């Protein structure tokens, strides 16, 4: 049965049967030759990968190109300061007032030991030592004409120690202050005031005064200040610090709110103590080495390099294609017209091409970049303008190729045929001549794409192309202008450079492969 059918088939097949002779269209021949070229295939694969990486990768990547990342870093930061009190503190009794020069007078009296003194306003005072650097101040009032007729009235307690209540807003009574300061000066373990029993716990020259076993007030010869105004230093903390100061320790530990021990480092500068602590601080995660979160690391602005490479790839590829598209359109029109009409038109247009060809392109781009800088053009406007300018300078090459091709095609028989059939000039140029130039155009365009990407990268590298925050491969490499980055953070600039190289190389491979495929003459 099968053999019978085969027999039938063979009978039906003729010599000129399309199924018998495998006919390849010219386009298929070109494609076949192209795909036989290994380099061209490599180029195609690279370009497809680049497109996927830039466009699909950019869409899938969770990070955006201008997202700044932060990290926490442990830094030794100032936590609190403590200074020895070198001026007397006064606690005045209710209803009493002190003269203005009491500070200096007390100081002199205490240091010279002459406990009687007269203030500037003429009143007499007397100090009575209660203990070390703690005095009771009396005002001496005359009660009679004799020098003996003097009454002492207690008006204040002066001390080089300060006394503060633990509870915020609570004012300590004069009586309590006096009792506490006296007790501390005498280093008494306990004392009573107004019928309440207090105990004191000493550390260095300070003491914590406890009422009913809980901290009530703090007496110290040191003034404590937290660096952050929000932080409140507890009495127990101050006591621990005082103890460490007294022991001459370089650090001490104190539990924080959660109960874990925190180490504090003490720096002593002539009686001024600085307490520092390792604190976690939020900083920009710049030049982070490649890690799980940032596969390519981060750049100097703390932005994810992988995301920037993806978005930079979009810009580079986009600019390449847009510029080449504009170039091809202008070049084909001008070249086609010049080649077809010849004569004066050709002469004029080709001189225009020559003029534009002579304008040095790189300095021109630099000048335009600095003009855009001056007018502070927004980043997107820069990209569009860059495309237009590059195309306006670059189309002359295509115009020359198209003209050259059309000049030779014009003389061929098929063009005479089109003329004889009365086809309009426009159709003759763009329907019959230009399609014959397309092979050269494609080759030129694929190689030109690489050139455009290179130029854009160079401009961005010089800081005149794509600007921050928009990313571009060239502007990523721009970081090497800082020698520190070049030396220590190779991961910042190497991938971007390799991407440029690979993309341009791939376009050149493709262009080379296409040229060979279109032009089999060279294949001999």
């Amino acid at each position: 049965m099968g053999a019978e059918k085969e027999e039938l088939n063979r009978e039906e097949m003729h010599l000129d049967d399309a199924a018998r002779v495998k006919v390849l269209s010219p386009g298929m021949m070109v494609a076949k030759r192209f795909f036989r070229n290994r380099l061209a295939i490599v180029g195609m694969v690279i370009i497809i990968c680049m497109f996927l990486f830039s466009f699909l990768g950019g869409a899938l990547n969770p990070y955006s190109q201008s997202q700044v990342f932060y990290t926490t870093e442990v830094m030794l930061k100032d936590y609190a300061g403590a200074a020895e009190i070198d001026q007397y503190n006064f606690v005045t009794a209710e209803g009493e007032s002190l003269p203005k020069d009491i500070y200096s007078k007390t100081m002199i009296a205490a240091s010279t030991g002459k406990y009687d003194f007269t203030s500037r306003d003429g009143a007499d005072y007397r100090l009575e030592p209660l203990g070390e650097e703690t005095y009771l101040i009396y005002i001496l009032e005359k009660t009679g004409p004799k020098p003996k007729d003097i009454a002492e009235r207690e008006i204040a307690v002066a001390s080089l120690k300060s006394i503060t209540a633990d509870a915020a807003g609570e004012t300590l009574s004069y009586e309590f202050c006096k009792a506490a300061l006296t007790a501390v000066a005498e280093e008494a373990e306990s004392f009573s005031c107004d019928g309440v029993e207090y105990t004191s716990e000493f550390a260095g020259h300070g003491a914590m005064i406890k009422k009913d076993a809980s901290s009530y007030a703090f007496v110290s010869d040191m003034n404590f200040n937290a660096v952050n105004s929000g932080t409140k230093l507890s009495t127990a903390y101050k006591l621990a610090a005082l103890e460490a100061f007294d022991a001459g320790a370089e650090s001490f530990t104190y539990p924080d709110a959660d109960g874990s021990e925190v180490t504090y480092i003490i720096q002593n500068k002539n009686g001024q103590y600085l307490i520092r602590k390792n604190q976690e601080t939020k900083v920009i995660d710049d030049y982070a080495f490649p890690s799980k979160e940032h596969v390519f690391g981060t750049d100097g602005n703390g932005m994810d390099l992988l995301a920037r490479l993806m978005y930079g790839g979009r810009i580079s590829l986009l600019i390449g294609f847009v510029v080449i598209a504009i170039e091809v359109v202008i070049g084909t029109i001008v070249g086609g017209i010049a080649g077809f009409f010849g004569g004066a038109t050709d002469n004029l247009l080709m001189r225009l091409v020559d003029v534009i060809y002579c304008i040095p392109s790189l300095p021109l781009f630099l000048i335009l970049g600095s003009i855009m800088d001056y007018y502070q053009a927004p980043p997107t406007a820069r990209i569009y303008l860059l495309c237009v300018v590059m195309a306006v300078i670059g189309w002359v090459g295509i115009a020359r190729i198209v003209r050259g091709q059309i000049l030779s095609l014009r003389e061929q028989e098929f063009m005479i045929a089109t003329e004889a059939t009365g086809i309009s000039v426009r159709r003759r140029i763009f329907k019959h001549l230009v399609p014959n130039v397309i092979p050269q155009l494609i080759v030129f365009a694929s190689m030109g794409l690489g050139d455009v990407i290179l130029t854009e990268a160079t401009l961005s590298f010089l800081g005149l192309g794509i600007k921050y925050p928009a990313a571009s491969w060239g502007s990523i490499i721009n970081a090497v202008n800082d020698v520190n980055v070049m030396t220590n953070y190779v991961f910042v600039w190497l991938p971007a450079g390799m991407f440029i190289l690979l993309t341009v190389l791939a376009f050149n491979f493709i262009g080379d492969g296409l040229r060979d495929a279109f032009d089999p003459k060279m294949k001999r």
Partner: protein
Amino acid sequence: MKKFILKRLLISVVLLFFVSLIIYTIMRCMPTSYVENQARALATRPGAKSYQEWVAQLNAQYGMDVGVLRGYFRWLSRAVRLDFGDSWFWNQPILDKFRDVIWYSFFLGLASFILEMVIAIPLGIAAARKQYSMTDYTVTVIALIGISLPSFFFATILKYVFSIKLGWFDLSGTVSRMHQSMTEFQQLMDIAKHMILPVITITVVSIGGMMRYVRTNMLEVLNSDYIRTARAKGLPESRVINHHAFRNTLIPIVTLLGGSLPALFSGAMITEQLFQIPGIGYTSYVSIMQGDIPFVMFYMVFLAVLTLLGNLIADILYAAVDPRVRVS
């Protein structure tokens, strides 16, 4: 021949006129922050004129007060007498500055040009001799990599490897720190040593084009009838290649080389800037960044002249070297 050269020269002059007009128009769009800064500085002096008056005076002095066309003709009438005026940024006549810096660029260009020729011509011929061999593929890939390498990236890699990692060369500049205390010969060697990385950069970046050019032309020659004839006569392959083929390949190569001679003076802007070599490219780069309009104008026109000169030389050489080309 004389008529041909004369005609090409005349066309070049006309082209140059229009090119410089376009360049001048663009230059006039440049931000004139230099003039404004200068006027601001002058106006702050004790007893000085107001800022507006200074701006007006400086603009008049630099020919910025008249329209583009009139300004252009004023510039042109001076330029044809080789008077390009004074550079704003460098504070000296432009031609003096040009004379100071051009030789750096020239020797940089010359060294890489020679290196390019020495490497590209043999490799291109070797590739063409055995088309589709391993050699051919290698040369093609090397050439395409050279074309595709961004010069700034390649320069950075060179700096990273040879200056930072190996420490063989300085990162940038033309002289080392001890330059003053060296003998004359040592000084020369010192400068030469500083030129090594830039020369390599320029060579590698521009070698690809020449390699491919040589290969294509050699292939064309090898496919021609007289080579087949030579082989048919039984000549040894070395004689066919070196005598018959190579001489004919020289025609396009000489044309290309002649045409690129003027380009030796154009300077390599990016490379010079990266290696801080005070050539014409670097000087112009700084001038562009500083808005030094007279110097940039001069440089642009200078480059245009070089391009035209290159085309002219190539055309003349083509006609002179190859008797088959008819002068039309």
